[in-house]
């Protein structure tokens, strides 16, 4: 207000410097928020891929464990193809069950010729056999949206319930 009581609206305007400073501050804040958002989104994508790999690896290993536990050790158990394939018999089941890795997929075959893909995105799979125990070791691998290769390794040991 001036001396005569008139309203001067021009005084309320921002100077160029004020505007420049505010733009600079807002830009800094926006850049900060953007960076936080970007890194959040990146790790979200990464964790989502890892979660998917974990769930898939666990589910396929659990499925294999359930069957391998029932192995009839008096029948032949073979591990071939650089330990990537296992063939075993289950008590009271005539045809053998086999699991093997083929082009990044784990295939279950039972009975012979009847195949089923039970997991994909598998980088490596290996079996070991000692003292009525089968070891399973696999690595699930997938590329996320940023093009990074993420992997999740999982190992399990199964002891036969049938002597």
């Amino acid at each position: 207000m001036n001396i005569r009581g008139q309203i001067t609206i021009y005084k309320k305007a921002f100077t160029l410097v004020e505007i420049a400073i505010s733009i600079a501050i807002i830009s800094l804040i926006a850049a900060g928020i953007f960076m936080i958002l970007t890194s959040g989104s990146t790790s979200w994508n990464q964790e989502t891929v890892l979660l998917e790999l974990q769930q898939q690896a666990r589910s396929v290993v659990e499925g294999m464990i359930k069957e391998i536990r029932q192995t009839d050790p008096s029948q032949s158990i073979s591990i071939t193809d650089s330990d990537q394939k296992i063939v075993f018999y289950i008590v009271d089941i005539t045809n053998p069950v086999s699991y093997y890795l083929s082009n990044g997929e784990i295939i279950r075959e039972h009975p012979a010729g009847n195949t089923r893909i039970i997991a994909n995105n598998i980088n490596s799979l290996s079996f070991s056999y000692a003292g009525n125990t089968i070891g399973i070791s696999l690595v699930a691998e997938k590329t996320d949206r940023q093009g990074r290769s993420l992997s999740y390794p999982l190992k399990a040991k199964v002891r036969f319930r049938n002597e």
Partner: protein
Amino acid sequence: MNKNKGAVFVLVVFVVLVLVLLGTALVSQSISESRLAKKYSESIQAFWLAEAGINRALDELRLNYYQSGTGLWTTILDTGEYSVDVVIESQDRRVIAYGFVPSIAQASAVRRIEVVMNKDIPPGFYDYALYSAGDIDVNGDAYNIQGDIIYADDWEVDHPENIIGTVTAEPTITPLARFDFQELRDISEIQGNIYTVSPSGKLIDPDTGEEKALPSSFWSPWRDDGIDNDGDGAIDENDEQINIAYIEGDLQLNGNIGSVGGFLVVVGDVITDPDDTQDTTINGNGLIDGVIYTRGTFRVNGGGEDGLNVDGGVWAGDLIRLNGSVDIAYNAEYMGAIGSLNLGGDVQVISWKDPQTSYPLVP
């Protein structure tokens, strides 16, 4: 100016709405993930509850084999309950155990395990020089076997002309019949013939902690063990007694073992030592004057110049493997004497099945 002030409110409402939507999606996703995880963990708990039911049935059937019924044993444990059904199928018992979490009445997870048990000592159990409930693997030409052979799985034998006796493949003899180990241990304890095995493989007297040699022959001087060995109705000095050596570990004999004898029962210690395999390994030469019962592998390496001789017979659960100079002869007198002890069989699991597999199985 006043008209424009409302825009901030609209903007704030919009931003809050977007945040609420995002938050709701996140919360609902994490609720569904946590439900899945809970379901998975409950299923695992139910599985082990069912396993507890199987162990209970094994224990109960060892006490009384003639029990059957639905919901025969039901027990509440920490996280849930198990219930066990037993069906009598001739000499076998079909045991079906269920695990429920958190309770039978309000089960959110149920797992089932089906097991067949029996306690048979099969006919002809005492009639063989070699009795393998798994494989037989004999290498080289420096061995001799006198007596019949039976096996369940694989047969890989060089120079079968060195065997004087019949060879029978019989898949049904697996798993190896299980003696009543408590009964054997009790006899062995009276005789002072219980052994534990040190980490370096030495045989130890559990009472003194000192190293102790195996008995030197199949028969031992007469002691009153309450067993009428000759079956004449009187327990007297005419009852020659079999040395029953009960070995709680893997039996390893190395070098010149001299003459050892008796009924050597190698049962291992799998309850306290998961790496235990109940194997018998002999590297060296000497005489075993008697019979060996091993639940794992019976393995002879070498045998030395004079060779290793077994005058009796061998039972093995997994594999009999002979390398080098080994002579094994069936001894009908020794086997007959063990047979006339009328040892009872103990209940064991013949087959174990988890019917809730992830993928279909074609019989």
